């Protein structure tokens, strides 16, 4: 585990308010999901999961075919597909388009994919104003923070945090009532919507047979982003394709239920190309950016490519006892929780944060709630194996190996074992019947220190079992 990961976890654990906020919010989302997926409410829930999994498996196994079909159909409606291999590709495309069209202002709706490539920062660097319009994302943009949760990005912020932020950044009188704070944001953002030249959205699904993107949301900012400006750019990972519009009947039922516990989201936008002849409004230009950014690295391994089935519902975060304690910002990349623990090492390489696949109790809750049935615990185990292999390659776990060799040697030599026991008993703080919370300095070093810092031990008895056995 890196020092950074360790520190962030400790900071989160030490912050009582944050602990409460994360635990309550995830708990609420978790309960709502359970209610709307219950057998009495959605009798075919398990069947839908099985179908969703089968569709995703089929698409990912034949990804090139569906990407090409999607591309052809987008183009048949007058849209354009732009393949991007990484962050630079995406920002270059947007910058170039903005330059050619003389655009300065961009409105953005929530997209984890654009977070992944730091699009806002890159655009700002070139003098373009790119404004997040989802309330939670807007708050985070003002605070210069990344999302705390895939679905509820500002879950860790209180109304007072938001009040301070708005006062400081927008120069408005301090308001702490959430309704009023929302109205302030609505006012500021409404103006941006009407002035912006370009709207950038994410996409939940890319529909191959229609050449359409489907986007779900509750606020209406996606609709505004994709309808008001002259240009709409949807940014999505290449894994987001589904074969047919009809498959939406399966996925839409699962996504909102798993994400927020709603039957469906307030708005589902199904968008295919720019405004057509005769239509009253809508963008004049329509682009879909298809991003790789490491996704193709997940394809060769049949088992791990399952990670690409993810529809980013966030249910695994809410179900995860580890996420609920260490929170979203402890994770080393934009994706947190169980899904973050399996895709981050695969996108960035396992040595990016070797502790990540181990930040799980393997309780299995994530796999159980996943609407597309990704076997997250299995992938975590495989990644743990990969971490060990890579450490062995880099010779990183020599100390641990040595420790285990010594341990094995001691365990297979009874006399040595007994001697070691007596030695330990003699240097350990003696039993006043209480737990041992600290050990003498010579033992408190290196990895042992980190291990012991989180663990208390029972006091050593005056006589060992072996001694008692001999004297019986």
């Amino acid at each position: 585990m890196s020092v950074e990961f360790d520190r962030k976890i400790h900071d989160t654990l030490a912050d009582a308010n944050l602990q409460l906020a994360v635990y309550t919010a995830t708990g609420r989302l978790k309960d709502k999901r359970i209610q709307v997926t219950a057998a009495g409410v959605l009798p075919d829930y398990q069947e839908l999961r099985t179908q969703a999994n089968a569709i995703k498996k089929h698409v990912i196994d034949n990804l090139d075919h569906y990407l090409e079909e999607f591309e052809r159909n987008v183009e048949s409606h007058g849209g354009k597909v732009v393949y991007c291999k990484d962050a630079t590709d995406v920002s270059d495309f947007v910058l170039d388009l903005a330059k050619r069209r003389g655009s300065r202002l961009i409105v953005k709706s929530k997209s984890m994919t654009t977070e992944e490539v730091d699009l806002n920062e890159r655009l700002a660097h070139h003098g373009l104003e790119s404004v997040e319009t989802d309330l939670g994302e807007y708050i985070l943009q003002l605070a210069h923070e990344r999302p705390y949760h895939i679905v509820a990005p500002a879950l860790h912020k209180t109304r007072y945090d938001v009040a301070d932020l708005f006062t400081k950044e927008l120069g408005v009188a301090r308001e702490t009532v959430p309704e009023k704070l929302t109205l302030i944001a609505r006012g500021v953002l409404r103006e941006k919507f009407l002035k912006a030249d370009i709207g950038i959205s994410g996409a939940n699904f890319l529909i191959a047979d229609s050449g359409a993107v489907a986007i779900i949301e509750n606020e209406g900012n996606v609709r505004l982003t994709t309808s008001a400006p002259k240009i709409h750019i949807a940014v999505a990972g290449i894994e987001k394709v589904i074969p047919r519009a009809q498959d939406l009947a399966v996925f839409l039922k699962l996504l909102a239920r798993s994400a927020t516990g709603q039957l469906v989201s307030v708005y589902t936008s199904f968008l295919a190309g720019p405004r057509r002849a005769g239509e009253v409004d809508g963008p004049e230009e329509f682009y879909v950016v298809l991003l790789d950014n490491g996704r193709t690295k997940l394809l060769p391994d049949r088992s791990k490519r399952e990670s690409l089935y993810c529809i980013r519902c966030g249910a695994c975060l809410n179900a995860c006892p580890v996420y609920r304690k260490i929170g979203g910002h402890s994770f080393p990349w934009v994706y947190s929780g169980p899904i973050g623990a399996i895709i981050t090492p695969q996108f960035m390489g396992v040595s990016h944060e070797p502790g990540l696949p181990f930040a799980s109790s393997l309780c299995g809750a994530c796999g159980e709630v996943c609407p597309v049935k990704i076997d997250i615990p299995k992938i975590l185990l495989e990644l743990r194996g990969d971490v060990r292999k890579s450490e062995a390659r880099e010779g990183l776990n020599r100390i641990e190996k040595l420790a285990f060799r010594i341990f094995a040697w001691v365990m297979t030599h009874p006399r040595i074992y007994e001697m070691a026991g007596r030695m330990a008993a003699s240097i350990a703080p003696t039993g006043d019947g209480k737990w041992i919370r600290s050990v003498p300095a010579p033992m408190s070093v290196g990895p042992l220190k980190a291990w012991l810092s989180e663990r208390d031990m029972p006091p050593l008895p005056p006589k060992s079992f072996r001694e008692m056995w001999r004297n019986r």
Partner: protein
Amino acid sequence: MSRDNILHKVRTALGRSAGQAVADPPPVRLRVPEIAMEDRIALMRSRVEALAGKTARVPTMEAAREFVAGAIAGKTAVASNAPYLVECGISSLPGVRTGIREVGELTAVCAQVDIGITSADYALCDTGTLVMIASPAEGRLVSLLPPAHIAVVPRERILTGLDELFTILPDPAAQTSSMVLITGPSQTADIEQILIRGVHGPGQVTVVIVG
């Protein structure tokens, strides 16, 4: 170019070659239940109301006009170009702007008025959803920019749910650049998970069922 590079990487990783045939995807799964019209109407109303939307059921088109006239009562409104609104006489109510076909004008009007009035192509009773298909008759902004949205829907357009919608419209892109499903008022829970309605879209949604 990134396109060929990415497609090549995908194919190599999957062990496929360009243009290689693909087995059929899993069969489409659409289940359309039988629900009697009266039950559909009741379910539609209860779903919309559960989301703090309003509903009304009126027997005739004239009654629909009267209901909408009452709802406008001194406020300003814009109506979409839906023929059904014309037939009901809603488009010619005093205080209602309609017949706008230019996007700049539509945006300006929608950003100012209190109420946007539309019909809906379909409604889905099991979730309380309005299906809005963009066309010369229905713009996107009328149901989006004003703080209140009234949708006037003849009862025969109420479908059972998503499965029936996608049975009737296997590919919505064949007829429109935009199909939007609206389920209740705009909402957010981004500050302390407190539910607030009307953040960017309309905070009030009224579904008027005719017949």
